[in-house]
């Protein structure tokens, strides 16, 4: 397969996913914050909270309108650029996405209308329920999308059908509630909540900077910062759980994240470090780091829940021979590649035997494939170096995410401290810091997804289908063309959305109580 086609197709998918993830987390975060504010309105009866909720609702609506359906482009790309993949995943990917489309989308579409049109037309409590259900609809959408993504990271609950060349779901609950899906859902949604809180604090601080809407801003900041602090702490916890799952199911991703070439027992976590740019190959003997500050035994603790646990490095994973989390002895990459080739040959033999109506040979080939199916994707790997994701990209993206995550906790604590000490209004540096933190919130989310997706390369489906086999035979120029079309369209859309959002923010909240 042409490497240029593969690179452009991956770049196109990454571009679309990155743009999509600009809108989704803010929708998830603002939904909960505005619903919390409306709850305060219903409970206290104060009109102040109604107008406060309405302002954030307006920004939610703008973000929702600009972002809605951007995810559909990803589905177009599956069908055109990744057609082998689309066929191969069968109903496993289709079922969650269909549920997402039918159930969650209609739930959002119904209740979002009540939320925006229903003030003064339905009861307070019905309106409040609609606001919460709008957020719940968006969150359920995220659940099904992340179930599909988690299956690609850790395929479970399926059987490979040799006649249809598709994976068929045999255990819906295993797919829908796999540990990978659960941690991915909570970690992703919580990161959206953190971004929503950062956004509310940042915009409110802009009002304080401009000496407008003081009471509204301080009240919004208090609600958002409490919510953001809670979400940040939970996000760190789910991040740890997510790392534990990655260690069990995607050890190569963990090794790349840590720049860990030689693993062992009692492995340390690199807290701060710089990779050696001279290191070009896993077996060139060069030190992977220019410098590093390690926390002793911490990687073992995070990955195995034991300070002395064994964590394999890149070299160990390629050589095999160590005991995995399941208690098995890990095969070497060369052994997996050999078994992958046996699996693909068995598929060829099976289909040929079926054409010739030779059922005995077909059965033998079927059995051979089932014995080796978990290594199917390794049959496409020409060189073991293809199994190693980009170490610098994963190493640095992971640290950007983690360091920003830690910063957000400190940020929310500081915001709450100054807000409750009634000093926040006069702290200009804090206002600027809050504004600067908004892009950091987006950066942390994108860095997290870079780790999740680039860390599992070369796999479209972990161990079963590499991207080189998943991709469609297209001309590179056609993919380049659509890449640049998307770049232009998405950028126009983003600029338009940001413009409308800024105009709405400058206009400020409405209502006599807070318009001063």
């Amino acid at each position, binding site marked *: 397969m042409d490497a240029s086609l593969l690179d452009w197709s991956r770049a196109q998918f990454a571009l679309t996913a990155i743009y999509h993830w600009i809108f989704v987390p803010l929708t998830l975060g603002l939904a909960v914050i505005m619903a919390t504010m409306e709850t305060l309105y219903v409970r206290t009866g104060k009109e102040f909270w109604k107008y406060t909720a309405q302002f954030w609702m307006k920004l939610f*609506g703008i973000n929702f309108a*600009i972002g809605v359906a951007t995810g559909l482009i990803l589905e177009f790309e599956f069908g055109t650029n990744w*057609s082998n993949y689309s066929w191969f995943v069968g109903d496993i990917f289709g079922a969650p996405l269909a549920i997402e489309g039918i159930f969650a989308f209609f739930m959002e579409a119904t209740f979002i209308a009540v939320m925006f049109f229903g003030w003064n037309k339905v009861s307070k409590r019905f309106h409040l329920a609609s606001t919460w259900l709008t957020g719940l609809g968006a969150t359920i959408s995220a659940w099904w999308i992340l179930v599909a993504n988690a299956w690609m990271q850790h395929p479970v609950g399926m059987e490979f059908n040799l006649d249809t060349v598709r994976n068929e779901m045999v255990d819906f609950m295993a797919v829908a509630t796999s540990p990978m899906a659960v941690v991915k859902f909570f970690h992703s949604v919580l990161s959206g909540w953190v971004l929503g809180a950062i956004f509310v604090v940042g915009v409110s601080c802009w009002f304080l900077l401009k000496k407008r809407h003081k009471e509204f801003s301080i009240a919004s900041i208090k609600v958002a910062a409490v919510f953001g602090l809670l979400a940040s702490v939970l996000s760190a916890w789910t991040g740890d759980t997510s790392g534990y799952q990655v260690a069990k199911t995607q050890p190569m991703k963990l090794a790349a994240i840590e720049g860990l070439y030689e693993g062992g027992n009692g492995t340390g976590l690199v807290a701060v470090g710089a990779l050696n740019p001279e290191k070009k190959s896993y077996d060139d003997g060069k030190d992977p780091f220019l410098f590093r500050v390690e926390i002793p035994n911490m990687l073992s603790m995070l990955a195995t829940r034991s300070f002395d646990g064994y964590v394999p490095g890149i070299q160990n994973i390629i050589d095999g021979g160590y005991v995995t989390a399941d208690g098995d002895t890990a095969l070497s990459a060369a052994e997996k590649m050999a078994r992958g080739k046996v699996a693909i040959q068995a598929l*060829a033999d099976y289909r040929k035997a079926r054409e010739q109506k030779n059922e005995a040979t077909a059965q033998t080939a079927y059995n051979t494939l089932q014995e080796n199916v978990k290594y199917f994707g390794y049959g496409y790997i020409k060189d073991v170096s293809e199994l190693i994701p980009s170490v610098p990209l994963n190493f640095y993206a992971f640290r950007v995410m983690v360091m920003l995550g830690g910063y957000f906790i400190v940020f929310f604590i500081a915001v709450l401290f100054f807000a409750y000490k009634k000093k926040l209004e006069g702290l200009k540096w804090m206002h600027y810091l809050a504004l600067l933190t908004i892009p950091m919130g987006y950066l942390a989310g994108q860095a997290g997804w870079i780790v999740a997706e680039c860390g599992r390369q070369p796999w479209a489906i972990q161990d079963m289908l590499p991207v*080189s086999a998943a991709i469609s035979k297209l001309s590179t120029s056609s993919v380049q063309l659509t890449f640049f079309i998307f770049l232009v369209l998405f950028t126009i859309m983003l600029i338009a959305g940001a413009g409308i959002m800024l105009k709405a923010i400058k206009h400020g909240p409405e209502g006599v109580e807070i318009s001063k």
Partner: protein
Amino acid sequence: MKNRLPVRIFNFYLEGFRQMTLGRLLWAIIFVKLFVMFFVLKLFFFPDVLSERSGGLTKDAYVASELIDRRAQ
């Protein structure tokens, strides 16, 4: 006489849309976006590759041949 539920729901939406201000612009953006996505991008740039390129083979046979031919030698 009280209107029936479907009529009340229809009126609810109708009044809501009529009273929109910023919402009109946002709906316009949504419609333009959906038009571009489904009537430009999907029609001209995102064909169903398996239907178009399987060359007389069934989809499963085409994908099987792709997966078998691309294996490492």
